[in-house]
């Protein structure tokens, strides 16, 4: 029952410490003796789902976004879309999140096609607009437990994302979120999550890490439960930042 972490474009899309998300999932599996493997998926390489998978898609620079958009425009993007429709787990952060929508327009006005997992588009910032930078606190509804939870992180993006017929991941309590206007942050469709939060995202938000792991393992065994871990250190780190932002 090995879980596979597919780190998409690990060598290119790691602008904001996204490696922390990989480490988080890996350690929280190891601490529960769940076998786990990390597979890097580079340009030109196909994804190879195993049925217990988490796909991580991090942030990169504009030049790299263009290369990725091209790489994803063929069968790789279609495969990823099919994985999501089949209940597979994907987490896209920042640039990865943007490429999970329909399109992403660069500051130079080039419109890059996205994978189309989420019904959303991303527009570049206008010359008179600032980059959206800072700490973020987001309230998230967790349908698995039917609870309202929170996540903290750091955002740094010029692009403004506008949702169509896709649920946001949550609502902004402090910070900018998708576009700094409508109070939404991120997107969720089935077990695919997109967000602007890095920081890294998962280490300080272990409930979300566990939800991704649970989503992935329940595809094969729907009664699977996770052993609780001692999250005291993570909770203190979450609280000290969240308290600053409230």
């Amino acid at each position: 029952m090995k879980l596979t972490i597919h780190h998409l474009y690990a060598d290119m899309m790691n602008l904001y410490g996204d490696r922390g998300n990989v480490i988080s999932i890996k350690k929280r599996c190891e601490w529960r003796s769940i076998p786990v493997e990390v597979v890097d998926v580079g340009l030109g390489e196909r994804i190879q789902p195993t049925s217990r998978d988490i796909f991580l898609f991090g942030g990169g620079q504009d030049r790299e976004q263009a290369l990725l958009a091209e790489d994803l425009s063929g069968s790789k993007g279609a495969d990823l879309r099919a994985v999501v429709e089949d209940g597979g787990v994907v987490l896209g952060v920042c640039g990865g999140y943007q490429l999970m929508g329909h399109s992403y327009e660069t500051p130079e006005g080039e419109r890059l096609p996205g994978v189309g997992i989420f019904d959303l588009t991303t527009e570049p910032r206008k010359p008179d607009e600032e980059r959206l930078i800072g700490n973020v606190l987001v309230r998230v509804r967790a349908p698995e437990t039917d609870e309202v939870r929170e996540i903290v992180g750091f955002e740094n993006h010029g692009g403004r994302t506008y949702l169509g017929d896709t649920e946001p991941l949550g609502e902004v309590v402090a910070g900018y979120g998708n576009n700094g206007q409508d109070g939404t942050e991120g997107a969720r469709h089935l077990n695919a999550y997109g967000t602007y939060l890095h920081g890294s995202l998962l280490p300080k938000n272990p409930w979300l890490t566990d939800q991704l792991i649970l989503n992935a393992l329940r595809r094969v065994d729907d009664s699977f439960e996770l052993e609780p871990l001692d999250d005291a250190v993570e909770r203190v780190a979450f609280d000290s930042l969240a308290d600053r932002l409230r």
Partner: protein
Amino acid sequence: MSSEFDPRLSAAILAARSAQIASRTLKTGGGSTMPGVVARRVDPKVLTKLSQRLPMGSAAITGTNGKTTTTRMVSKILQTAGVRAVNNSTGANLVTGVTAALVSDSSVSGKPASEMGLFEVDEASVPKVAAEADLKLLAVLNLFRDQLDRYGELAYTGKVIASAFVDLPPDGTVVLNADDPLVASLGRSTAKAVYYGVDEPNLDTGRLQHVADSKDCPVCGTALDYETVYMGHVGLYGCGNCGFSRPELQYRASRVRFDGARGTEFLLSTPKGEAEVRIEIPGLYNVYNALAAAAVAGESGVALGEIVRGLGEFGGAFGRVERVKAGDREAFLLLIKNPVGFNEILRTFVTGADARNVLIAINDNDADGRDVSWLWDVDFEMLADAKSEGRTNGLPPFMVSGIRADDMAVRLKYAELPVGSVVPDRKKAIREALAATPPGETLYVLPTYTAMLEIRQTLSELGYTHPFWEDK
């Protein structure tokens, strides 16, 4: 090299003098660049005019890491060699700061007291300084992604620097780090490149760190093949596609031996011969700084013996590495600027089992970088690996402090490293860490910039150091 009376130049220097006095009296701060701004307003050609009156011309040093240390090393070498050089101060490395330094070095009639200009220059300011300051030499140390809040395009920074090469005279020199692929590739834009680098297979980390910035060939974009990786993306590399590879070295360090916190020894090879060098500051990054300094001095005409002597007398630079006597203990402050520097410090001190008392202090003020994601790019896993392979005598629990102490604690937890006490307050943390350090031992303090200032302040209040830090 005209030195006839120039009324406009003199007016500019006088205006700068009164601005300097005013800003000191009013304590408005910014005293190091303000005179430059004022002088340039009165005479826009002031920098060109004054630098043309320096008999030996000027050298500039740029790059992401090590500018201050390297500039100070060259300064020490020149001093040893009896050359009077004018420097700009740290934090004044734009064209206004360079101007201010020259203006304050000159008499009102426009005659510099120094023979040579030696400036550290911000990467983006290189073209402007090169166009105005009559440079004979420009050294490029390295290009790393540094401020993580800034959306950086390294290749663009490289192009900006290379655009300045045409402003050097025909006998001018560009000194380049051959081991940084992007920096080495700049040599393709000039016929005057001199390269330095390290040949020491024992220092191969065997891993391209996760923070590596330019792993792709700067010429054709293909992934580079690395024979040796020293740090980050710095090493011995080649491109299987277009044939671009590490250039031949004119200044080389080999047989590098680390002596823990005390210093480093290596064999320096230059076009004028070879010599053993010992520097009193630790770490491979300082070997690179020393090599760059040797190349800048050597290409400026300084003899090998003076280079070796100057490097040997160099005692470390403001803000980078600092040793403070704290009663019967010692505190060793090592500034953390970015993941590459952090990795180097871990490799040099902690895996060597030298550091038994460690305090890490992470702040997230503007000057530290507000985004602490980079902590996840630091290779703490190398310590866990060293521990499991028995290469350390058991790692000490790290004490953590700073506004983001709790983030640091999470990072250590996920690297499966022992966390000691978590004390966000910096003043309290340094006091407790010193108290926990056994007499006769050294406390290693690894702070980000503003945490370092706070910790220094506290050490100073405890009477453990003189209040002035610049090693003038």
